[in-house]
């Protein structure tokens, strides 16, 4: 049985990706923020797909200790029940904050959740991915365009702008994918950045207020459904010839010129330092 791990799986795009793969009879291992949201998502999916193997794991992805614990739990589950093989990892959890906030590790929240969590979880699950020749997907976005990483102040401790924080984190997702491939392509694991398009989900309304919230309420109505967006993920994971870095609803997409080897290496080194890893 094929296996897929999906973060941010209790709502929006992540939940729709769970549905798509439960339909195809993959074992779906979802990750959500709390026991409560995980329980609810698990129940709904099992009701819709009786007999499918669906399991949820709570993890607050802003906390590195929890990510490491999650990595251990998932690795053990994969070893015990699935021959230690992970066919796909979808790093999809993401957030927006309209104020500068820090995680318990002292990192800016959007950078920590949208980028560092994906880096650390992928590092934890690499052996299982190698075992299956699996694929890693990161939910990036067209909003990565027209921006640069603020290298002198990646955590944005000066002049915090919510939109910039988000854009920078989505650029980091693509830089991660690029450097991952340079390092691990020969081991049979490939990484892709995904542009889900504009999707009608609640992301801009959680923990935000004022203009950010209002803007998103109107803007999201023009978006496609999460199920439509999930097709891109299913396509990239199951197709035989996905050899580009960045995919959207209509196939391979162009990405920013900021996504280059030099930036990618630099971000990798920084992420290693901030996660205490040597990935």
């Amino acid at each position, binding site marked *: 049985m094929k296996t897929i791990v999906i973060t941010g799986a209790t709502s929006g795009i992540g939940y729709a990706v769970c549905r798509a793969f439960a339909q195809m009879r993959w074992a779906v291992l979802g990750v959500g923020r709390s026991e409560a949201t995980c329980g609810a998502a698990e129940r709904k999916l099992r009701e819709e797909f009786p007999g499918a193997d669906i399991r949820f794991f709570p993890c607050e992805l802003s906390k590195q200790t929890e990510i490491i614990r999650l990595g251990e739990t998932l690795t053990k589950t994969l070893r015990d029940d699935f021959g230690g093989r992970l066919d796909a990892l979808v790093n999809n959890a993401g957030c927006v904050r309209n104020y*500068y906030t820090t995680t318990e590790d002292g990192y800016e929240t959007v950078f920590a959740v949208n980028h560092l969590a994906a880096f650390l979880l992928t590092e934890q699950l690499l052996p299982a991915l190698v075992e299956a020749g699996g694929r890693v997907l990161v939910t990036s976005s067209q909003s990565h365009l027209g921006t640069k990483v603020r290298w002198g102040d990646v955590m944005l*401790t000066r002049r915090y702008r919510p939109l910039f924080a988000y854009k920078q984190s989505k650029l980091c997702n693509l830089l991660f994918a690029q450097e991952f491939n340079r390092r691990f392509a020969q081991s049979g694991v490939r990484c892709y950045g995904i542009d889900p398009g504009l999707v009608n989900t609640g992301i801009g309304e959680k923990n935000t*207020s004022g203009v950010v919230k209002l803007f998103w309420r109107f803007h999201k109505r023009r978006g496609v459904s999460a199920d439509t967006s999930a097709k891109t993920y299913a396509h990239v994971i199951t197709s035989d010839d996905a050899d580009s870095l960045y995919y959207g609803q209509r196939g391979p997409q162009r990405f920013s010129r900021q996504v280059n080897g030099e930036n990618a290496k630099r971000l990798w080194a920084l992420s290693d330092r901030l996660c205490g890893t040597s990935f």
Partner: protein
Amino acid sequence: MFVLITGASGGLGRAFALECARRGCGLYVTDIDAQGLERAAVGIRRQYGVPVETYACDITDDSAVDGLIQNAQDKGIAIGMLFNVAGLDFEGAFQKRSFNDLASILRVNIEATLRITHKALKLRDEKRDFYIVFVSSLASLYPIPLKATYAASKRFLLDFSIALGEELKPQGVHVLALCPGGLSTREDCLQAIAAQGFWGNATTNAIETVVCRTVSKSLRGKTLYIPGLVNNLLRFGARLVPPSIIARMLHKRWLQAQQQWLSIGNQ
């Protein structure tokens, strides 16, 4: 230079720790939450590579604080700056809280803060100036029904800080009181700000800016910092109106806010 920060694993304390690390200071941090303190310390070292010394303890415990001071002396840590951030509050009317809760507000916000300050001055390098920051609150500027104990405890810090600053000036000690409005420190604060709507956002201060300016102002010898234009206007307005009338207005507003808050909780 080392800075000593209390309440360093909370949102504001951590922000001060990050700001000082960014400026290249060594950190001596304490909090009652030992795990949180350790995690923040690891993250700060990884980001800035500065020395971060941790000592978890309960600052309401006199002998624990002696331990904190002794530890610094043993390790040869000379403190140049002290941030009194640790503090607490319990929501709710005077009679709805246990007396123990109310007394612990005084014990942490006032007694423990003075204890640390008194003892930390011993760690000072006499040849250099010394800087102390007290985290008071916008709440210190008015008597606030339903938050009476908390607001009065912050008022104590404000008055105390101004007086102490005057007293210690000749010895090269600079004391600053910080009176912030809402700060986006924790997830539940963000939700509370969102629940208060316009006024929530208007009185909220960007935490990264507040910590940066606080440090700069303290180093320049300033004695009071109230961040934000709206907060300063509120303060100015408060001076023109007698305290009893302000208390009446605030009472109404808090009752309303509580009801909104409750109705959100019930949704």
